């Protein structure tokens, strides 16, 4: 082999390109994989839209036990805002309350009694609403009425906070599952072994696996974002370029972690276990559905070092606060560290046989 001769690939492109293309084609020809990669964020988003319908509030659902004063209680509750009276078959009240069909039961004695579970937020709200309605009906005079200023500003609702978390979750899930499964499959089919028997560079194979997925990032992260903007009215205050950079760095980091987890696994069972072991704690700790500040201060350094925490914080900062890229440099550094460290370790310990 003389190195001064030009390289002739017989019409094929650089191995990195061919490897990434092969990976993408395989993915695109797997209808189930495509379906789940794109439908999952849509299902999540639709569920959110149903659970958090814009500005509306859920009424308190109240049952009334039979008794002499039942009709009067029903009439009083029917007048009150925010309360729905549900008919519960006699004898079934305890079950309806236990299973959350009604949030509170009124026993129409004189004075009435309330049956409810104080551990449930909606039951406590129902108690306040019902108490107010019945006392007003009984002739209570209020010293004053407060002026109410309901929060309606787009971008400050829970659903606005939630969507960037769903985007982060989607990037993590699709990057890691997508890479992990295809590698384990190639290992099981002894294709990896065949590839290393050729002059292919191992680092190029691993790079192509992560890089090939980046093409899929736009739809995967885009679907929940577009849904948030156009259906739920979430604003994007930062620049789209900054947002794209954060998504890209996040996907590279999780792609590398997918490689790392798949670097030794020989079966789908093994890789599934490892993936869940790595991802489930982040679902809970990294502030997807509720803020990670709920966890004790002692845990915070560890939580902040998690890649999904960094990704979610950076996404929220750009989407909701309109921060420039440089203000999320810390988060990007955390993601880059996971990405580079994960890749380097994967390359070292990868099992090619």
């Amino acid at each position: 082999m003389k190195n001064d001769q030009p390289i002739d690939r017989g019409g094929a492109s650089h191995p990195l390109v061919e490897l990434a293309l092969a990976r993408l084609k395989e993915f695109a020809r797997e209808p189930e994989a495509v379906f789940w990669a794109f439908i999952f964020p849509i299902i999540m988003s639709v569920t959110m839209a149903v659970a958090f319908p814009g500005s509306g509030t859920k009424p308190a659902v109240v049952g009334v036990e039979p008794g002499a004063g039942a009709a009067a209680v029903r009439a009083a509750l029917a007048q009150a805002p925010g309360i729905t009276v549900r008919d519960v078959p006699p004898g079934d009240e305890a079950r309806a309350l236990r299973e959350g069909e009604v949030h509170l039961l009124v026993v129409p004695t004189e004075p009435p009694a309330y049956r409810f579970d104080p551990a449930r937020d909606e039951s406590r709200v129902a108690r306040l609403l019902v108490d107010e309605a019945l006392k007003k009906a009984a002739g209570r005079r209020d010293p004053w009425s407060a002026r109410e200023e309901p929060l309606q500003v787009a971008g400050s609702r829970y659903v606005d906070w939630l969507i960037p978390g769903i985007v982060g979750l989607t990037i993590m899930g699709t990057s890691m599952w997508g890479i992990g499964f295809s590698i384990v499959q190639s290992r099981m089919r002894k294709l990896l072994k065949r590839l290393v028997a050729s002059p292919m560079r191992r680092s190029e194979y691993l790079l192509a696996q992560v890089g090939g997925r980046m093409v899929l990032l736009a739809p995967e992260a885009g679907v929940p974002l577009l849904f948030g903007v156009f259906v739920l009215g979430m604003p994007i205050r930062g620049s789209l370029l900054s947002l794209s950079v954060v998504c890209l760095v996040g996907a590279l980091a999780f792609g590398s972690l997918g490689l790392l987890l798949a670097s030794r696994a020989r079966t789908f069972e093994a890789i599934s276990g490892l993936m869940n072991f790595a991802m489930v704690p982040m679902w809970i700790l990294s502030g997807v559905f509720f803020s990670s500040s709920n966890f004790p201060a002692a845990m915070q350094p560890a939580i902040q070092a998690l890649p999904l925490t960094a990704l979610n914080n950076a996404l929220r900062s750009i989407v909701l606060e309109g921060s420039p890229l440089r203000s999320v440099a810390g988060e990007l550094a955390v993601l880059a560290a996971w990405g580079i460290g994960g890749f380097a370790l994967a390359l070292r310990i990868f099992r090619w046989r």
Partner: protein
Amino acid sequence: MNYQNHPVVGVRCANLVKRYGDVVAVDGLSFHVDRGECFGLLGPNGAGKTTTIEILEGLLEPDAGEVEILGLTWRAHERELRQRIGVQLQETQLADKLTVEETLRLFRSFYHRGRTIDELLRIVELESKRRSWVAKLSGGQKQRLAVACALAGDPDLLFMDEPTTGLDPQSRRQLWALLSHFREQGGTILLTTHYMDEAETLCDRVAIVDHGRVITEGTPRGLIASLGAPRVVTHQGTLEDVFVALTGRHLREE
């Protein structure tokens, strides 16, 4: 003797040992293959053929012994050797959802020189399957594609591990023709097989291996002749007679 870049050396291995725990898969194995030769490693299942060929392919590290490929060593010249050899492994399943052409493009991209995709398709007679998914190919077509991948870099030396196992007679003959053609062009082949007719047809020399050692080595004709007259009286002696005489038992557990 100095073998460094010697034009005659195809493969040379000496005193190879490979252990898996207590099991000795390869137990002091030595042989050599000249350039331009087709050499067959014969042996029953579990004799150590695959372990040996994978050591020679640079995929396994031997516990002891020396390996020299085309006058070079894996330790010092891995990158160059990978460019100059072609490999077909026993168990590889190529990606189901790539087409024949895409698979060849991928493999061809790894080599710095070699044949074009069209040439490769023509050599293995898969032009009409160019746009078919690998999953849709027959066993023989898949195996020819595997050989085309091995030929992508126009190798000097071809390693074939049981290339025709599980193929129908037509496919086997098609593959034999392909390998004969490669050898006529000056290529060197090292193959493993447990089909005696394959070895008789293709190989200039064979080594019969059992329990990780070479039991005997020579040309197919010479080995048959060495069995002696009595057998040849009843029917034309075959390599299978030699094989069974030397490895003993007809039935073996895998």
